[in-house]
């Protein structure tokens, strides 16, 4: 069937809109990318839009020679990997237990879960609790509070409940306990949901900065996102203060290109991971999106 003129022009307009939207989405990256690879003095003159006019790696050299940034990067890697393992492991076991209909007290447990999800005690009481638990300025504050996540628990529980009963029955008959059934039988067949949760937690951990901003006062424990936040907050403050000039002195390069390079080294890893695993991201996250 031949398409009418109206149909074809609709297609053209539609694709044009999509192309423009894609450009709008990507342009800030391209622009920041170009600035980050620019010579500091040259960038100050402005006019860098798509490509560095005077190519230079000095901003990255400065960024990567700054021990604070390297340290922050390591903290981010550590919290992401440890947080991932702890959350998937603890929430997984929790969800598996709650997926059993014969669990005594199940309804009460689920009520506790749902209530804790929608009623927030507030920043100050949370802060004071962490203080009493010794979590302030402690690396564990990044990974412990997220160990049990009710939202992920619900996603995993729903998945476990849909698994065929026969799967476990044979294992239980063979004398396997719940723990070993969970590891040997349930986990291997639950890889789709585990992968989804891994993506959720991984992205979350990589992107977290607020917890470190509030609950941590030690520079050595600062993740890269919080470090970046401080750079940005400083560059937003109109008057130069002592900290800022100190920072500038240490960095010795144009503020703008350094900031751009710092944004890039934080954004590029997660963007690359996203691009590589895009298929899984969208497929797995569909589950979460549809439910949420």
């Amino acid at each position, binding site marked *: 069937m031949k398409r*009418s003129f109206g149909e074809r022009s609709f*297609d053209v307009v*539609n*694709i044009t809109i*999509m192309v423009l*939207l*894609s450009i709008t*989405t990507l342009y*800030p990256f391209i622009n*920041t990318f170009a*600035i980050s690879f620019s010579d500091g003095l040259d960038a*100050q003159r402005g006019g*860098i*839009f798509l490509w560095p006019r005077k190519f230079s790696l000095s901003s990255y050299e400065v960024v990567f020679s700054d021990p604070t940034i390297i340290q922050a990067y390591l903290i981010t890697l550590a919290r992401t990997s440890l947080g991932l393992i702890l959350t998937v492991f*603890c929430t997984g076991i*929790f969800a598996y*237990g709650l997926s*059993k209909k014969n669990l*005594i007290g199940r309804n009460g*447990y689920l009520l*506790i879960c749902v209530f*804790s*999800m*929608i009623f*927030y*005690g*507030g*920043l*100050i*009481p*949370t802060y*004071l*609790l962490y203080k009493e638990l010794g979590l302030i300025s402690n690396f564990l504050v990044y990974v412990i*509070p997220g*160990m*049990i996540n009710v939202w992920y628990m*619900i996603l995993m529980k729903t998945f476990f409940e849909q698994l065929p009963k026969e799967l476990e029955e044979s294992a239980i008959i063979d004398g396997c306990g*719940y723990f070993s059934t969970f590891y040997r039988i349930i986990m291997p067949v639950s890889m789709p949901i585990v992968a989804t949760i891994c993506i959720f937690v991984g992205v979350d951990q990589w*992107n*977290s*900065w*607020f917890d470190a901003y*509030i609950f941590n006062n030690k520079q050595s424990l600062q993740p890269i*996102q919080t470090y970046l936040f401080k*750079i*940005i907050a400083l*560059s*937003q403050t*109109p008057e130069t203060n002592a900290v800022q000039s100190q920072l500038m002195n240490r960095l010795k390069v144009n503020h*703008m290109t350094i*900031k751009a390079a*710092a*944004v890039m080294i*934080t*954004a590029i890893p*997660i*963007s690359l991971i996203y691009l590589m695993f895009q298929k899984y*991201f969208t497929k797995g996250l569909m589950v979460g*999106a*549809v439910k949420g």
Partner: protein
Amino acid sequence: MQTEPVVHPRNNRKLWTRLLSQKELQLMVLPGIVFLIIFKFVPIYGMQLAFKELSVSKGIWQSPWVGFQHFIDFFESPLFANVMYNTIMISFLKIVLLTPLPIIFALLMNEIRSGRLKTVFQGISYLPHFLSWVIVGGLILTVLGKDDGTLNQILMMMGFIQEPVFFMGTGEYFWPILLITENWKEMGWGAIIYLAAIAGIDPEIYEASKIDGAGRFKQIIHITLPSIMTTIIILLILRVGYVLDAGFDQILVLRNPIIQDVSNIIDIHVLETGLQEGRYGYATAIGMFKSVIGFAMVWGCNKIARKFNMGIW
């Protein structure tokens, strides 16, 4: 805590044996429950600080009661109107202006015929969702900066403006910037759920309408949009429940002292009075005010959404 005296020994023993018979199962769940009680319920219990004046030497539990003083202080504070207005208006504008955009985006995306193009467009549109507001803030400041910002340079080159505009330092621009950046970050991602709903529509309906001579535009209006209406309404209801969340991360990253009066929201006020000024009781009271209203809103909205069989829980 002491255990209750045993009233019905037989029943009780039965419960005990049943519990013992599934002790492994209980052991999988109980640590999680204890965890939630410590990390979620203890702060709720700690909310009593809203009615107390924290004395550092005595701790929360022994601090003296002050009744509703902190709440009264908050309601009478000159910042109260400002903070509430900003919070509700920013949230309201986001709901009203930004809800239709992912829907339109999904409808347009659905009309792309080439599968490969569709994947590329979708892939690009999801990307900003995976970045933190800190990164997005860094990108935005590069583009919107005053002297070195790219947008200013483009506008000046094209002759629209003579002097660079201080986008981040002008109050009137702040809310539009919040709306645009929020949409930039989340529109593609927000469209996923609508795309999923559209994918669930029976293709036969489209075939039938084609025979009846409906064009694509008519199909969108008369088939696609009505079919996803329930999804749209439910998401809207659920979003309304979070009306007191105006976007803490986003505003914290993008604000600066010059535009304080348009960027003060409840969460920021709690942060400033509590952790920066050390007025723990006062800040807890504001936080509690938000939590209670927020809880009622989420609960109520979810009740409504459950009528459509699509609550959060």
